């Protein structure tokens, strides 16, 4: 499953009004959660699932929509290699890079740190893009050859 936040993950796993995944899970089953949520919430749900012999592991992914379509995502997995091994073929369908990080929750730690870098980077990029269009030099950029500039919009030398 890959869901928007930890409250929704909890409802899907443990049910909310109706039965959740745990209702039909048997001891020995593994639930793989691709959602990006706090490591603390993942660990909490994993502990609850463990009381019924079910293993919940975090496996958030990164690599944008295009990576998902191409099956080239990075999968950051909060479990040791031997636990992941039986599911590796399934995960390889979406990701070429599987990182087994040992303990539950660590997938989300790495994913959140990744997004911290990527999204802060993107904010900086947007500020730079905005500055590049400022009046003093907006008209003076030479046409660049980059594919980014092949649109009908004005070219930028990046």
């Amino acid at each position, binding site marked *: 499953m890959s869901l928007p936040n930890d409250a929704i993950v909890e409802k899907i796993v443990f049910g909310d009004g109706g039965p959740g995944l745990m209702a039909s899970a048997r001891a020995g089953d593994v639930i793989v959660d691709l959602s990006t949520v706090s490591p603390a919430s993942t660990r909490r749900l994993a502990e609850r699932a463990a009381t019924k012999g079910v293993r919940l592991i975090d496996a958030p992914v990164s690599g944008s929509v295009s990576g998902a379509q191409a099956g080239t995502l990075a999968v950051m997995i909060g479990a040791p290699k031997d636990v992941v091994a039986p599911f590796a073929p399934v995960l390889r369908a979406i990701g070429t890079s599987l990182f087994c990080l040992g303990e539950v929750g660590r997938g989300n730690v790495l994913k959140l740190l990744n997004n911290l870098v990527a999204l*802060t980077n993107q904010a900086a*990029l947007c500020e730079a893009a905005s500055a590049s269009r400022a009046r003093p030099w907006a008209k003076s950029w030479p046409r660049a050859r980059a594919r980014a500039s092949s649109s009908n919009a004005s070219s930028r030398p990046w």
Partner: protein
Amino acid sequence: MAKSSGASFILERKLPALVKHDCRPGFFVDLARKDLGVALELAESVGARTALVREAWKLYGEASAAGFGTLDSSGLLSLLEPSTGKE
């Protein structure tokens, strides 16, 4: 810039859209704000400094409040230069 020290995955993937001011998602501004918020909590829970990230998180929050929440997260540009719009 893609051939210089400012290069990044985000630059490579998002630049074509930024140049065209094409904010179709992608990855929503609202999701970016949520992820950065959770990342901030995580970093602060271990006592890490987060000044830079907090400013970025505020920007995504402003973009969301301005009605850009379901634009691609690179749609921050719409907040930074509201007059430009889609060319």
